[in-house]
């Protein structure tokens, strides 16, 4: 049903702010020194806040606050919610207990990945799906025949990632009693002002860390509560550039950066099956049915998978962002989609998509061609690349329960 004209007219104001500000914007803007904003799904988001490199070290050494409010959020609730999500997503949702989080992905009928994201089971019949792209028509159409309600709640819910070795200490200091018992991928609810904040032990950094979700109206007071608690614990606000480095170290992939989502791909051949982007482990073939199941299992049976996503370690220290991967320095084998020099691993690492059999049957003699622009000249080099398992770094503090104070 179309909203009535008064409501619609009240929303006309959006033309004055083509870039939405997140519920935390006032705080981040006050701290911001670099004035380095970008558009994240229509929101004004910080690429950096004070210094990209130092922000990285805040994540790895103290505690960093990263605004994840622009993440698209759907609330899925109702008696059939579990059954519905089991049909929608690749993993077995029946195995996801209440107050737990699942990293998952979902596919179209051809088995092509529509997106990856995190599924929060807030209560037995209530879920939150967080992802990068928008899927409301897909989610609604998939719900036909299920007793389930789907609501898009991106603007209503503010999200904040608190990541780093002192993140637990910050939360404990902020008075979130019992937070020490929270295990990875577990959720707990706490009082905050006159509302509730949902805290999960999740994150995109491979480090000790948490994600906090709160109604937008309580966002600033939550920020202040954490900021005060973290004053002596090195808390800093960070932007996407620093977070991106840590996610590459953690080996996480980003939709429409490391793979094209099926609905965004203009060129039909760019869509990918889960097994082609390293998400084969999500596919629960034991489940009776889920969307894309037939296509995925058939591709496995026929060995018709075309691509594979791998972690690469590259000799030298020049990041190979966007580089072409070669076999025997000659045959094109694939493309690097993300690459950094990892300060934590002291290695030159990359995430790449290779065209099989490279990466599956042929794994040796791989090279990347790096074009490094240096003072208006390209330094061209061919560097040896070795396939290595992801994550590139593994931190014990990420999983230790109770977590350490730093």
């Amino acid at each position, binding site marked *: 049903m179309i909203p009535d004209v008064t409501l619609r*007219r009240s*929303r006309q104001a959006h033309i004055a702010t083509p870039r939405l500000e997140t519920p935390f914007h006032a705080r981040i803007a006050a701290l911001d020194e670099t004035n380095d904003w970008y558009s994240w799904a229509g929101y004004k988001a910080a690429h950096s806040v004070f210094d990209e490199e130092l922000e990285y070290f805040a994540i790895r050494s103290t505690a960093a606050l990263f605004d994840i409010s622009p993440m698209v959020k759907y609330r899925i609730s109702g008696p059939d919610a579990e059954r519905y999500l089991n049909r929608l997503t690749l993993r077995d949702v029946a195995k996801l207990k209440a107050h737990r989080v699942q990293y998952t992905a979902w596919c179209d009928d051809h088995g092509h990945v529509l997106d990856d994201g995190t599924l929060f089971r807030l209560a037995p019949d209530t879920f939150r799906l967080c992802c990068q792209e928008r899927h409301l028509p897909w989610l609604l159409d998939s719900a036909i025949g299920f007793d389930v309600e789907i609501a898009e709640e991106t603007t209503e819910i503010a999200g904040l990632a608190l990541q780093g070795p002192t993140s637990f200490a910050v939360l404990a200091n902020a008075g979130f009693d019992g937070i020490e018992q929270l295990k990875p991928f577990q959720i707990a609810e706490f009082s905050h002002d006159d509302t509730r904040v949902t805290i999960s032990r999740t994150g995109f950094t491979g480090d000790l860390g948490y994600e906090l979700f709160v109604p937008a109206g309580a966002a600033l007071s939550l920020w202040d509560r954490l900021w005060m608690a973290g004053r002596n614990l090195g808390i800093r606000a960070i932007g996407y550039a620093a977070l991106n480095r840590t996610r590459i170290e953690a080996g996480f992939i980003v939709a429409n950066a490391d793979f094209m989502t099926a609905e965004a791909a203009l060129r039909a051949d760019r869509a990918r099956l889960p097994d082609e982007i390293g998400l084969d482990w999500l596919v629960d073939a034991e489940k009776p049915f889920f969307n894309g199941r037939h296509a995925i299992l058939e591709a496995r049976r026929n060995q018709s998978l075309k691509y594979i996503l791998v972690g690469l370690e590259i000799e030298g220290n020049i990041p190979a962002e966007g580089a072409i991967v070669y076999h025997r320095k000659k045959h094109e084998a694939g493309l690097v989609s993300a690459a950094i020099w990892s300060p934590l691993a002291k290695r030159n690492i990359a995430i790449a998509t290779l065209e099989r059999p490279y990466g599956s049957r042929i794994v040796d003699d791989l090279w990347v061609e790096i074009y490094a622009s240096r003072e208006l000249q390209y330094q061209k080099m061919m560097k040896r690349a070795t396939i290595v398992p992801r994550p590139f770094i593994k931190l014990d503090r990420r999983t230790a329960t109770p977590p350490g104070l730093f």
Partner: protein
Amino acid sequence: MKKYDVVMIGGGHNGLVAACYLQRAGLDVLVLEKNDWVGGAATSREMTPGFLYSNCSYVCSLFRPEIMRDLELPKHGLQVIAYEGGAVFTRDGDYLASYRDHDSHRREFARYSKRDAEAYERYARDVTRQCRFIQPLLMRTAPDPFSFKPRDLAELLYLGRKFGDFSAHDMAQTLRFWTMSISDFLDEYFETDVIKAYLALSGIIGTALGPMSPGTAYVLLHHYMGEVDGSVGAWGYARGGMGAVTQALASSFRASGGTIRTGADVEKVMTRSGRATGVRLADGEEVHGGLVVSNADVKRTFLKLVDEDALPETFVHRVKHFKMRGSSGKLNIALDSLPEFPALPTGSSCIRGDMHFTDSMERMERAYDDWKAGHFSADPFVDMVIPTTLDPTMAPPGKHFMSCFVQYCPPKIDGEDWTDADRDAFAETVISQIADYSPGFRDRILHMEVRTPREIEAEVGLTEGNIFQGELTFDQLLFNRPVPGYAQYRSPVPGLYLCGSSTHPGGGVMGAPGRNAAAEILRDLKRKPNQMSPAHDVI
């Protein structure tokens, strides 16, 4: 008496494009234009002092950038300015806008439906996919599937291979897309009527079909295939009006040594031993040429300019039944000041884009019903733009030129010829519709030019005033445009060619028919095209 290598009938944009390429290839080309100005349906004329009107076509997107570059049109004064979005006004006092910025666009749709807001991406992807398939065909001669000549076979193979890149699913989608109605197509993506009405406009423009008629989805595609400087699907204003396109072409043509004669109304194509040898003008003058090329539509060319006894019967039959029905009219208005639309908030960019008032599919279809009944729409569909919000050259400062494209408007009223009273009544439906949304609109009008199919046919020469020289439905495209077996710009009369929008790839100020025709003519003359750069890759 001088004999030209090529005599071009008509100085519309396609005629001039073909003439330019032929002249540049070393031929001596004469363009004969019946009016005292060139341009056909792409003109800018000063009908009242100080105001330039884009008299017929009014926005620019389809004109191929390869042609602009090859013919050095920027040097000859052509500039195209992209414009932002637009709006459809709703009867309840609100509007639905469109924005170039993806997220602003989504938020605008979300005012009506969160679902539709998120459906737009999939819609845009699917339409763009279809465009990407069609786009490379624009600047290629359509293959004749029954000729079995190596070249046609190679071209068919190319098509087949392109089609082969599609998944089975995409192929099925493409066939559906080419044949379904724009209404059915939009229903698969959107639930909100006003959103569908807004998007459906490109499916019916210039076409004597309603949004619920099969085949209209393809018409939409035709309007998405253009670009403004690489921004695919974007529309813009030609600076100085659409006449700037043809003025630049004429200037480029003359600069390369071509000759244009205005006020030269061609009455007959002369033939000797079945071969075209030149034309006879209305005043009896004969102009001789090695070849004759007609920029006129296929009906005017073969039912008026060529004697029927020179043509095969089946061909004539096909031409007679080629659908080229008048369906639209035009109001060009000089305004004393910028009209106000209280529904729009202050600072809205919509006034610089295209504005409509038809907020439901049903109203759009009802407007078509009037046309079927032989009358202009009582509640017409209007595509309204005010180019002077971005172009300072068309009106004095503070004053404005407004162009209103109006649909539906039949070639005859209840089977009778249009009268001046009919024309005035037609104009009144449009003015009163605008005035409903813009208080004081009537008082701002300084001058108005009203064009029904009668005026368009009389002045431009388009049969029934059909702006596309033939409707863009799938039965009249590719190797069926305009007539099967004659879709490669040649005709049953040796030495006579077609180069207008009646030929592949069809109407709109695109220039591709003119360029393709020139390429075929040069092929017949065993000459190499000069300065005809390859079509841009679609990557």
